[in-house]
């Protein structure tokens, strides 16, 4: 019997409010703002020494840039080597193997199988349909948008999209899983065999970007669970089902990574891709992107070690920290004759360590079973599309491929080509939320050279933001203001040091334009050649000794003179101009 898939319309189908459980508005665990990692180039200190004393990535041969060439190769060969802190010469080196399971909440109006809304931080149990609460007799209806999001993500990650995929039930009892099972795609997921390319920093100043590839095993569609809030004081658990049934993309990354930094950078790249696609907001602090890491260590050339799974990684920075901690812990354990247990560990961000969760007594058997209420999910391409098919009832992979937005790697390439910036600068522009848009807006409005703009945005502007721990959206300086400032600089109306001064004024949020600040503070460069010549003359007369030094070929003396003249102009003169005048007068 062949069934056509019914797709749920976006309209809500009578969401109800179940307020059996009263709970605070937010899970305290997720309100914490997560500091962002800047594409892995920060000078983090590793808990373990690196073999070559430099970047842990140097050893891994740079992988081919955009192909899936890496697939099938032994991942072991590429692992950088780690040694324990106390390792003496001649002992075995350790290699770490890291794989990731990433859950990305799909950005959609309604849930994966029900019409109730998807919204973060809504009042508890206010977004719960009968299906979400697992009322008896309710049935799942697949949300078309979620399927499209999965296909888009699969295509962006170079996956093979399965024309037919299946849904399964995964059983376990938990208070925030009202049906007693999660609908997922265990046997035949929607997308398989992809790859993700990310760039890690290398080189003496960590200024080179080396592309790396991690294979993607599969992407599967599944339901999110609700949230349990444990009230230990009154020893009760409060359940919020707002999240129950929200669509998730589970992205499984093969164990092709070898340290926290690689994993963090890969996750950041995935985050950017999901955000570019719009398939997930991928905000880790809001739990829209959740990462579990599988970690093991072994001696190169020997079989892989026993792995642990580290959960509760709710920021990219903690992800890197947790992985590195866990690698080091395993090495220490093994070096001291201990044993690694195949267990689930939780990362405690305050203590900065991982701890065994010991929550599963014995092995969990999820008793997978085909979901009988959902027919196989069938996707079409241009060649297989049945004639006269209702476009509302079919999903055309080719059509989705055509409408894919620009991916971060392409954006970066364009930035490099269009503005002649360094590749690592393009990484920074994309990694910082809103920075690229800010940059582009400045470019649009200014006559200044792109290189100048890049330098101002990445050094001055970003520096100020970092210093005050602000996001781009919180910046007191608008793109137009910076553009105007750069124009003033470009037209040599002000000197670069005056420009810095203006920028600092702008940062105070007093609502003044750069032009106003320049005129109020009289920061314009002296354009009057005669006046400047007069000034130079007076300075020379006042400092005969310095003039003598210049004439005696003391190379520093001219600078001293220039400085004296600038001082006399209250820094409003262009030093280049001063130098020219002085040189002429001194007949150098």
């Amino acid at each position, binding site marked *: 019997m062949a069934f056509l898939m019914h797709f749920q319309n976006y309209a809500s189908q009578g969401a109800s409010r179940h307020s059996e459980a009263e709970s605070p508005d937010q899970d305290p665990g997720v309100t914490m703002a997560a500091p962002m990692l800047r594409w892995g180039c920060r000078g983090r200190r590793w808990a373990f020494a690196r073999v070559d004393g430099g970047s842990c990535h140097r050893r891994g041969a740079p992988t081919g840039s955009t192909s899936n060439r890496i697939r099938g190769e032994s991942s072991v060969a590429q692992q950088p080597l780690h040694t324990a802190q106390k390792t003496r010469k001649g002992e075995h080196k350790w290699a770490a193997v890291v794989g990731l399971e990433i859950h990305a909440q799909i950005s959609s109006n309604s849930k994966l199988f029900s019409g109730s809304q998807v919204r973060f931080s809504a009042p508890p149990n206010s977004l719960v349909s009968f299906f979400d609460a697992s009322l008896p007799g309710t049935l799942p209806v697949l949300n078309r948008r979620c399927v499209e999001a999965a296909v888009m993500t699969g295509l962006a990650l170079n996956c093979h999209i399965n024309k037919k995929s299946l849904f399964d039930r995964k059983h376990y009892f938990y208070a925030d899983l009202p049906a007693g099972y999660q609908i997922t795609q265990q046997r035949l997921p929607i997308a398989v065999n992809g790859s993700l390319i990310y760039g890690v920093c290398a080189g003496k100043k960590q200024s080179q970007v080396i592309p790396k590839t991690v294979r993607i095993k599969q992407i599967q569609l599944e339901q999110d669970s609700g949230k349990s809030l444990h009230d230990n004081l009154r020893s009760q658990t409060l359940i919020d089902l707002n999240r129950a049934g929200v669509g998730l993309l589970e992205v499984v990354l093969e164990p092709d990574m070898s340290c926290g930094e690689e994993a963090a950078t890969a996750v950041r790249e995935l985050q950017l891709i999901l955000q570019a696609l719009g398939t997930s907001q991928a905000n880790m602090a809001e739990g829209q992107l959740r990462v579990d890491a599988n970690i093991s260590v072994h001696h190169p050339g020997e079989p892989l070690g026993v792995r642990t799974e580290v959960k509760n990684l709710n920021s990219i920075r903690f992800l890197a920290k947790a992985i590195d901690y866990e690698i080091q812990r395993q090495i220490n354990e093994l070096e001291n004759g201990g044993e690694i247990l195949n267990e689930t560990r939780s990362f405690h961000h305050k203590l900065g360590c991982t701890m065994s969760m010991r929550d599963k007594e014995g092995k969990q058997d999820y008793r997978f*079973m085909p979901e009988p209420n959902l027919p196989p999910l069938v996707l079409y391409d241009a060649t297989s599309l049945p004639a006269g098919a209702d476009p509302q009832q079919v999903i055309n992979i080719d059509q989705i491929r055509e409408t894919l937005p620009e991916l971060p790697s392409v954006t970066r390439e364009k930035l490099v080509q269009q503005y002649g910036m360094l590749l690592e600068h393009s990484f920074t522009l994309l990694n910082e939320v809103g920075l690229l848009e800010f940059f582009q807006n400045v470019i649009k409005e200014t006559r200044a050279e792109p290189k100048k703009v890049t330098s101002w945005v990445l050094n001055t502007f970003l520096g100020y933001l970092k210093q005050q721990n602000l996001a781009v959206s919180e910046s007191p300086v608008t793109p137009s203001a910076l553009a105007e400032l750069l124009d003033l600089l470009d037209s040599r109306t002000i000197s670069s040091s005056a420009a810095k001064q203006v920028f600092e004024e702008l940062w105070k949020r007093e609502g003044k334009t750069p032009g106003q600040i320049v005129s109020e503070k009289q920061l314009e460069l002296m354009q009057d050649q005669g006046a400047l010549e007069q000034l130079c003359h007076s300075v020379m007369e006042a400092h005969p000794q310095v003039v003598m030094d210049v004439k005696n070929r003391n190379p520093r003396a001219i600078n001293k003179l220039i400085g004296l003249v600038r001082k006399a102009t209250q820094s409003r003169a262009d030093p280049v101009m001063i130098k020219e005048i002085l040189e002429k007068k001194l007949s150098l």
Partner: protein
Amino acid sequence: MLGRSLREVSAALKQGQITPTELCQKCLSLIKKTKFLNAYITVSEEVALKQAEESEKRYKTGQSLGDLDGIPIAVKDNFSTSGIETTCASNMLKGYIPPYNATVVQKLLDQGALLMGKTNLDEFAMGSGSTDGVFGPVKNPWSYSKQYREKRKQNPHSENEDSDWLITGGSSGGSAAAVSAFTCYAALGSDTGGSTRNPAAHCGLVGFKPSYGLVSRHGLIPLVNSMDVPGILTRCVDDAAIVLGALAGPDPRDSTTVHEPINKPFMLPSLADVSKLCIGIPKEYLVPELSSEVQSLWSKAADLFESEGAKVIEVSLPHTSYSIVCYHVLCTSEVASNMARFDGLQYGHRCDIDVSTEAMYAATRREGFNDVVRGRILSGNFFLLKENYENYFVKAQKVRRLIANDFVNAFNSGVDVLLTPTTLSEAVPYLEFIKEDNRTRSAQDDIFTQAVNMAGLPAVSIPVALSNQGLPIGLQFIGRAFCDQQLLTVAKWFEKQVQFPVIQLQELMDDCSAVLENEKLASVSLKQ
């Protein structure tokens, strides 16, 4: 009026011979009189009267909604009904009042039908006797029929007649008893392995199981999702077709309903001639346990078709004998999964234990489910264990495919409908029935009906004749997938030929006091 068919009473309503309110009140009063049958778990008197009032207004203004407007119906208590308690005859759902209507319920209400109440069943529809629900067993109205009683008087060995009442079959026994005792004109059952057809056969009714995917399951509390279908119990084939016409069609809330446009309404032509028909007789259905009476009626029915010019051929469904064991694996596995949601958290029963969430789950489920349900959950979880999945579940799925293919092959050989028995014998007394456990009974009683569910085919049980004991015997017709109308057309022709007698419940209808006396006796005997 109460003895009429749905079609007849619908005509009477249209002609103003009776008003919906009068009809509703008559049915309500009969429900009260026949309370001892235990057919209803909940009688929705107020709702029904209000619906009747509205229907009456429509008739008065000439805005009747159609054939079902003002018609009293009953619904098995495993369909979700908004604002009306829905229990599945389980402690687990006692007091559970759903906030929504099952699609089939909503469709009936949209057509103006009056919901008289929710009918009794085996707990979560797991059973074939309607004896294993928390509200007690359902009694077969035929136990009190003139036809049966007269035969029993001839039998000197009969004991206390009121302790000797008969089961209805099940699990939709409450729905069957409700229609059979004239308390409504049609009832919804559910059919997973024969749960609609089996009680229909035992209660002398038409029991129709539509093709899987033709009628929405949204709101039907599942037993086995891949086999469940809403079933229809009526007094004649035309009535079943009217109800099917109201129910059939795709439902955006049930992704397993099919999109193909349906030939509506299901008007059944009167076949003048069956000479173009080919009737298949599956040889594997001739089992040793089949009672000689049923076997003889089966063979007479085949002769009837043949004598009227139809081609009657023997066919083989070679995998039939694996059906029961295969069903056992698939059913219990889905049951284990479907029942996981009953944890006492969101709705339904919750125990008092609060030491831990796990302890609360365990006690809630122990208190909430009966032994049958717990037993099935246990075996189902066993079959789904990683180490057993391939050996049990996957194999059972393969066998299911073979069973389904048996039917495909039979139909491909030119057969239009298959003719089989519905049950091994007529209804047995309760005391006899409970000598075997639920599992044994289900395995025996589903033998002719349950392979159909594996294949998703339409099937209907038609009452044929009374046994020597004066009890109804039904035969089953099985059709091609989505050829429900063709199947019912053949059934309608057959129904006309056999002229099955109407149940004679005069004492019950007219003599209220006699009934009440019976009730006392019956309840006494139950408690012993």
